[in-house]
């Protein structure tokens, strides 16, 4: 994507967006997995959080084996949980495998089975065998586990994907990093990435937890950060740190939702808005220049919504009024003809035809330019963005309307009006005179991995096929099936 768009996105996303809803207190959450349509994550002490949609969370059932910082992976017909325990004083610990065929406690196949120790540390060696992280290598189907916590090395061992146990118990673990914990490996486009948590945990708002990363062409390392420092010598480029009112992100988990939508889970050591509790969060996972980038979900506010494909922006199909009023083109009347309502040539500030008015021109007030807008539904179209009122859109979370993975549904209205963007039964777009909360007016706004956004209505009247907002022409938007390749469905949200 264009650099300017990405920078704009990062500016928009540097602040925290809307937080998850419901019961989200947890420490050291596992990678989130899906089972029978529900999302599950497990944390230290056996905390289980469950969600139907990834937005509203509630407390689930604690598994029989409670321990520290579990990780979870779905392999075949089993859900494998790797969970650590101290065996005496740290750093003497081991990591155990337990598994079940369902995470749904109402399922007849919900039953945790013990499978034994997978890795351990004896209390003297340079490793603390806790905080496992799993990777099923998409290139060759091999299963790997990384583990470790501050004391000594982060280690890598190969597991048997059929049993979940060590493939070769005689094979020595490979040291790949040091002085960090909660390691996770992910693979993307020829690179293995090690994301690990640096800093101190468990001190509430005084926790220095932060997520750092390095990458390697081989799973066994070396994992170099963006400055070329090996993580086995303490390297690590910042992936996510504290921001606004959340402190200490740690315990990364990746979720690939398909169609270029990726998210990551983590916990914050302290959410100041929740009394300093340790809480779960889900955020967009973006990619830039071969490195993962931590994004945030959409932040409420006013935006211009620009198509990456055409460079034109969504607007209400009404006659726009230039900000500051119409002016004549140099040398005679402009092609737009004489000024319309509210127009008229602005006063000259001297300095010739390009000298401006000599004073700041205020933003356009929608109340002043909307007097001639039709009262009913108005078509949606696209045009060159000119800072006009009918081109500015307010994006706001809708309470009690549910959500999707990591985010609530949003309404999109012409800024400072109640005119709401909506899908029609014909699979086209319209702008209704008022927001009613109907599903076709609720929008799922997914950050794509390149930092652009996909906009999808929650439902389309009389249709079941999922359609996303599409810039089919430079001046026209419609709804059509999302195409991961190409720019038709990619939108940039810019602060106007």
């Amino acid at each position, binding site marked *: 994507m264009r650099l300017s768009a990405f920078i704009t996105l990062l500016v928009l996303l540097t602040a925290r967006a809307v937080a998850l809803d419901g019961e989200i207190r947890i420490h050291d959450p596992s990678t989130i997995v899906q089972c029978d349509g529900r999302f599950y994550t497990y944390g230290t002490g056996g905390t289980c959080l469950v969600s139907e949609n990834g937005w509203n969370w509630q407390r689930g059932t604690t598994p029989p084996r409670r321990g520290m910082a579990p990780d979870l992976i779905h392999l075949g017909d089993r859900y494998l949980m790797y969970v650590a325990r101290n065996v005496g004083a740290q750093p003497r610990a081991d990591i155990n495998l337990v598994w079940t065929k369902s995470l749904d406690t109402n399922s007849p196949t919900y039953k945790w089975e013990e499978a034994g120790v997978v890795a351990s540390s004896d209390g003297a060696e340079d490793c603390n065998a806790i905080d496992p992280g799993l990777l099923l290598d998409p290139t060759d189907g091999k299963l790997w586990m990384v583990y470790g916590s501050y004391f000594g090395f982060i280690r890598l061992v190969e597991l048997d994907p059929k049993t979940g146990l060590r493939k070769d118990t005689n094979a020595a673990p490979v040291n790949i990093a040091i002085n960090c914990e909660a390691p996770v490996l992910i693979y993307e486009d020829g690179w293995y990435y090690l994301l690990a948590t640096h800093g101190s945990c468990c001190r509430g708002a005084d926790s220095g937890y932060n997520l750092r990363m390095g990458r390697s062409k081989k799973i066994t390392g070396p994992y170099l950060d963006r400055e070329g420092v090996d993580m086995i010598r303490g390297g690590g480029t910042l992936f996510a740190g504290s921001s606004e009112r959340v402190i200490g992100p740690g315990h990364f988990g990746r979720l690939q939702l398909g169609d270029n939508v990726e998210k990551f889970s983590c916990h914050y050591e302290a959410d100041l808005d929740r009394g300093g509790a340790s809480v779960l969060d889900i955020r967009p996972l973006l990619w830039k220049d071969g490195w993962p980038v931590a994004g945030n979900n959409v932040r409420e506010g006013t935006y211009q919504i620009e198509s990456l494909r055409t460079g034109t922006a969504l607007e209400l199909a009404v006659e726009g009024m230039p900000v500051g009023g119409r002016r004549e083109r140099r040398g005679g009347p402009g092609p737009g003809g004489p000024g319309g309502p509210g127009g008229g040539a602005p006063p000259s500030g001297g300095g010739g035809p390009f000298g401006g008015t000599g004073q700041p021109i205020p933003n356009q007030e929608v109340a002043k330019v909307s007097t001639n807008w039709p009262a009913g539904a108005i078509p949606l179209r696209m045009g060159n963005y000119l800072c006009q009122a009918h081109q500015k859109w307010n994006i706001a979370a809708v309470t009690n309307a549910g959500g999707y993975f990591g985010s609530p549904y949003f309404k999109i209205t012409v800024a400072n009006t109640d005119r709401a963007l909506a899908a029609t039964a014909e699979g086209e777009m319209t702008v209704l005179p008022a927001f009613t909360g109907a599903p076709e007016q609720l929008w799922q706004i997914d950050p794509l991995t390149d930092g652009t956004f996909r906009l999808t209505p929650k439902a389309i009247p009389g249709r079941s096929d999922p359609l996303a907002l599409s810039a089919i*022409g*430079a001046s026209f938007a419609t709804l059509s099936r999302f195409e991961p390749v190409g720019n038709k469905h990619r939108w940039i949200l810019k602060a106007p």
Partner: protein
Amino acid sequence: MTPRRFLSAPASFALAAVLALVLASAFVPTPTLRAAEGLATAPTLKPPATPEIIPGADGFIQRWLILEPIPTVGLTDNAVQAMVKKEHFPNQLTVLPKDGEKVTVAGADLAWHAVDTTEYNLNLFHFARALGKPTSNVLLWGVTVVNSPEEVKDVRLAIGSNAASVWWVNGTEVIGIYGDRQTVIDDGVSKRLTLRKGPNIVRCAVVNGGGAMDFCARFLDSRDAPLKGLSVRLTDAGGN
């Protein structure tokens, strides 16, 4: 009885030429030939030489009947809409004229001209200039007939124009783009519509402020690719 004689070679050629002209005139009206004299200087336009043409792989419609320019002013939404809603000549939203027919607009006789463009777009500046007509602050009407071998649903008309333009398919307004703008392929795109089996009348009104003026148009299928299988002629007779 006079012995039968074969024509000499020169005479055969002359007869063949006359026959060719007669045959050509059967489907290319003589006014086009007259118009072609003026339009011959238009570098991208030529008179139709066949009863119908098939759009290329990119689907652009390259045969149109264009009415000589009507003076006007204004490119804004309201100005253009008011302009096309005003009756300039009888049945302006339904008529399917013939090449060379004339209408009277504000006391001036204006002629329809059948033209093929050699490009993806139809250059109205070339058109007006070749005829010695104004190119600034003008409205030009265009119409063509697109024949479809079958009914096709979820089709879109996709156009670009310099400058503003309004478009109709089978009498229904489907696109309006306004303001001082340049032609961009698929700038204005209609909502999903259905093409009838047989002739479908596509009509446009292009309004220019000054400088270059042109337009392009094609139909897109349900996957946004150029619609295949269409042919273009300037009469609604003889369709499928």
